């Protein structure tokens, strides 16, 4: 989707700022999966994540007029996403562990092969373990692995130093490895 993101240039953003809904739909189509993924992994609930995603894009529709281009648009957008997720957390008082019923695959998808199934099992375990991390360790991991941001970009989104990002990722990775130490055996990965 890098190519799709490249389509979001100054003219599209300007059109969005002037209220052009076609341009905004393009923006939505480009970023919806990333925003939704962060919302799901943050809230642990698909329905809540749908609401949060809608709220983010509703807010973006208005707030985009305030975007002045001082930072990258994506940094600005992810800051909005992170803040919305934090607000949701405050509203619900705590970040709930991801529900066991949250499935990563879409309904109607074909049944995976045995190896793919093992990998999906691992992915489910990772998802659950990430849900148990503290938000300050979880968010850098989501920004790194879902959004593919660099440490500098994550620092920009989270409003902290690059060193803090490195440190939080380190601790997040360690906690993940400890919580999922039973997956150290390659056979658990379908290999």
């Amino acid at each position, binding site marked *: 989707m890098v190519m799709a993101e490249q389509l979001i240039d100054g003219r599209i953003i300007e059109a969005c700022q002037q209220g052009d809904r076609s341009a905004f739909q393009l923006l939505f189509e480009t970023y919806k999966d990333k925003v939704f993924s962060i919302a799901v992994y943050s809230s642990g609930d698909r329905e809540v994540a749908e609401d949060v995603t809608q709220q983010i894009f509703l807010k973006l529709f208005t707030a985009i007029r305030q975007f002045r281009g001082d930072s990258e648009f994506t940094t600005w957008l992810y800051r909005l996403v992170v803040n919305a997720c934090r607000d949701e957390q405050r509203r619900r008082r705590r970040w709930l562990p991801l529900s066991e019923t949250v499935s990563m695959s879409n309904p109607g998808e074909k049944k995976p092969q045995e190896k793919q199934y093992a990998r999906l099992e691992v992915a489910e375990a990772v998802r659950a373990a990430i849900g148990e991390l503290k938000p300050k360790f979880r968010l850098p991991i989501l920004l790194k692995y879902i959004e593919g941001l660099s440490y500098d970009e994550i620092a920009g989104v989270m409003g902290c130093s690059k060193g803090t990002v490195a440190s939080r990722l380190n601790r997040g990775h*360690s906690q993940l490895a400890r919580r999922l130490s039973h997956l150290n055996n390659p056979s658990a990965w379908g290999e």
Partner: protein
Amino acid sequence: MLSRHVTKDISAYCHGELSSEDSKRFAEHIISCARCRTQFEEVKQGIKLAEQLPRLSAPEHLWRELEPLLAKQAETRVAIRPTLWMWRVQMAAAAALVLVAGMVGLWLYNNRVPSIRTTKPSWQVKRLDGTPRIGSERISNSGQLAVGEWLETDGNSRAQIAVGSIGNVEVDENTRVRLLETHDTEHRLELARGKMSARIWAPPRLFFVDTPSAVAADLGCAYTLEVDDHGASLLRVTSGWVALELKDRESIVPAGAACETRPGIGPGTPYFEDSPAAFREALKKVDFDGDAGVRNAALTVMLNEARPRDTLTLWHLLARVNGQDRVRVYEKMAMFAPPPPGVTREGVLQLDHQMLETWRHALESSWINGGGKFVSKPVAEAYWRVKNGLSRRLKEMAPK
């Protein structure tokens, strides 16, 4: 340890976020620091797990539900109709999205079909002698070994493989190797038969070689690995360290040492190549002979022949023998190198993991340096007298 610990930089190193100078310093430190190496393993495993996190797809109905809300919000704003250039941009965008979707589809399809080479990462192979083959193709001077492909040499040919940017492997005559995997956190070869020499200059556990009877994990080193027609292998380390693993069985082999493996058993016990011949012969029986009586007698020979530096072998044997044999091994080791503070006889005999690791770390420098740091037998005996006396007194003082 002269340089500072690098644990806080591990994720940044793995993600390529360190400068080249810091990366070099990191790699040099981690090869020599067991503490940072342990942490490196953990973080690397965490990264491997996090990489499994998939991006999810937003449900299709989201936009349908969002549109009326946007319209409501737009009532307070002046909406601007799309201009002609906007329409063109949208058309171009739609076309590009279709193109992206097509490319993604093609990529996914290619990954399901092993015969398509262009989508797979590969290593460069250089001919050293004769005409080695990749698959069925002979290579004249150089070629590319893609994931899943075999490189084969006959009695007159040899080849060299560039292992990404982290080292190289020389493939000897009559050898068959396959590239199994290559990416940032793991490079893996399979050695089905023959002999290869690896020289790796990367942090530990980035380069692995699968053999029929064990997996050789590079810990920053140079080594040769041979596999015979029955799947048994012999590892000889010339610098650094290599771990040989099969399921729960692991042998850690330093420079100057060797280790044999057998199908169905896994890695045997490592030994220094300059150890007495009788010691090595006896070790082979302890490791692989099916008769308990033969193994017991061989252990006696080993313990008689062992030199202080052979604590490398004895340390590994602790977990591989039982009952009274373990006590005998422990006592011989303790005579050569008393356990460090915090490591007790009871703990070692019960195979307390932490204590075994602490003792190993204390012994490692002597395995590398040739035994210069070992205490003499009289000093060791004096140490034990004091330590046992102190333990007894502490027991007496403890509240009943």
